[in-house]
């Protein structure tokens, strides 16, 4: 028996990296999964294929989650197909490196829209379905950058927004049987840190108390915990998964 038998989960940005690991973990635990992507169609289809191999249903939905119409359509499509939405993982996000001095207004808005407005939109448009079912599990992907902020102000601010959104939204919807939490990964070994030099990787590994870089699977297991019955009394929390480095 899986931890998510008969559940339907939407994972945004599930074609690659952490989102992909979460989608596959949920499928292994018995969930049918909506694989959302924006540009990586080929990769998304491959994730769907892997989910089907596990024995679960997967539907691939293209949507730019920072666009209201796209999000609305995605939710309608998913509900129309499965007649339920139990789980939403807002994972889609971007990171550009830039100082405030060099950041353009367009770049700033792009990051806030992709990382924070997307969370608002997906939560807003999934809410009617979850409220009706009196059941819902939402996990929002934040970052340790949103807790501490090292550099890249725009990114840190967007992720701090995600943490606070989760916290306040949790209070709003707790009475409807909906739980909302966020996860703040430290640097995870995905494309997001592909520009790190070998030396930087080594140094970061040594600085981390658990002596390894994070893997997408570490985040996936935490996401699983937060959407399963095992965490039924946990809401509004931000779980830092960073090997102790921060």
């Amino acid at each position, binding site marked *: 028996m899986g931890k998510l038998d008969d559940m339907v989960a939407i994972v945004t940005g599930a074609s690659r990296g952490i989102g992909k690991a979460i989608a596959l973990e949920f499928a292994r635990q018995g969930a049918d999964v909506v694989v959302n992507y924006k540009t990586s169609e080929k990769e998304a289809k491959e994730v769907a294929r892997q989910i089907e191999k596990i024995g679960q249903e997967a539907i691939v939905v293209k949507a730019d989650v920072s666009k209201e119409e796209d999000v609305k359509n995605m939710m309608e499509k998913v509900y129309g197909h499965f007649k339920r939405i139990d789980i939403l993982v807002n994972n889609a996000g971007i990171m550009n490196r830039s100082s405030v001095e060099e950041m353009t207004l367009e770049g700033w808005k792009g990051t806030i829209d992709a990382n924070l407005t997307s969370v608002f939109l997906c939560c807003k448009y999934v809410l009617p379905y979850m409220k009706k079912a009196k059941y819902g599990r939402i996990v929002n992907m934040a970052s340790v950058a949103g807790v501490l902020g090292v550099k890249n102000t725009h990114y840190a601010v967007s992720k701090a927004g995600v943490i606070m959104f989760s*916290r*306040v939204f*949790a*209070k709003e919807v*707790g*009475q409807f049987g909906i*739980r909302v939490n966020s996860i703040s990964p430290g640097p995870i070994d995905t494309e997001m840190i592909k520009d790190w030099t070998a030396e930087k990787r080594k140094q970061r590994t040594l600085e981390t*108390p*658990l*002596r*390894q870089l*994070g*893997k997408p699977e*570490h985040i996936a*297991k*935490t996401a*699983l*915990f937060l959407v399963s*019955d*095992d*965490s*039924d*009394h*946990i*809401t*509004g*929390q931000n*779980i*830092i*998964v*960073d*090997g*102790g480095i921060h």
Partner: protein
Amino acid sequence: MRKLDGKVAIVTGSSRGIGKFIALEFAREGADVVVNYNKSEKEAREVAKQIEKLGQEALLVKADISKPEEVKALIEKTYKHFKRVDILVNNAGVVEEKEISELSFKDWEKTLHTNLIGTFLACKEVMPIMKKQKLGKIINIASIRGLEHAGRAGVLDYSASKAGVINLTKSLARELGPRITINSVSPGWTKTEMNLGLPKDFEKEETGKIPLKRFAEPEEIAKAVLFLASSDADYITGQNLIVDGGRSLN
């Protein structure tokens, strides 16, 4: 495969309350469990019996966690018997429901010695074993009373001790080796013996302030501890996991 197959876990103060539920949850997941108690021998034996029924081994060890030599003996007995200690849950705790005018220095000392110093002692004693194994999980039971802004009148000693536990956890996480994690769990209102005697009006009022509109079941605290004790949380250390239905968000 279960989450704790082949593991040996010590749960301090596991004759009753949350500790008992943690011990049983661990056994269900395949761990052998050391059931520690101070006074409640009968209840501890009953917990051990239930663990054996689940098909796991239970070792009963009497120890007052506030006493250094007894904590040392607890860890030594465990190691001698099982030749390993994979998981330590520092759960034993006491509370004096008194305001400062009523709270004696002795009361204060008793709470601090059990809740905070006892946790330190157990961590210290188990550390050489976990370092040798290059493997270990420590989970300290704190409380939302130990959070900033969440203290409550009349539980001064308890709140201070639990704040200490949360910080001890964060600080110690930085010292530990590659495969040893330490985290705390902070329950809010939970349906345990400790809270059975709450006035009904007070309980109703408090329930209304919890976003999920209920107290936690002790099993739910045990599930959070299980998560942190399992390999699912291998990359989590130095964290405080709040299990309170959202009560402390306000």
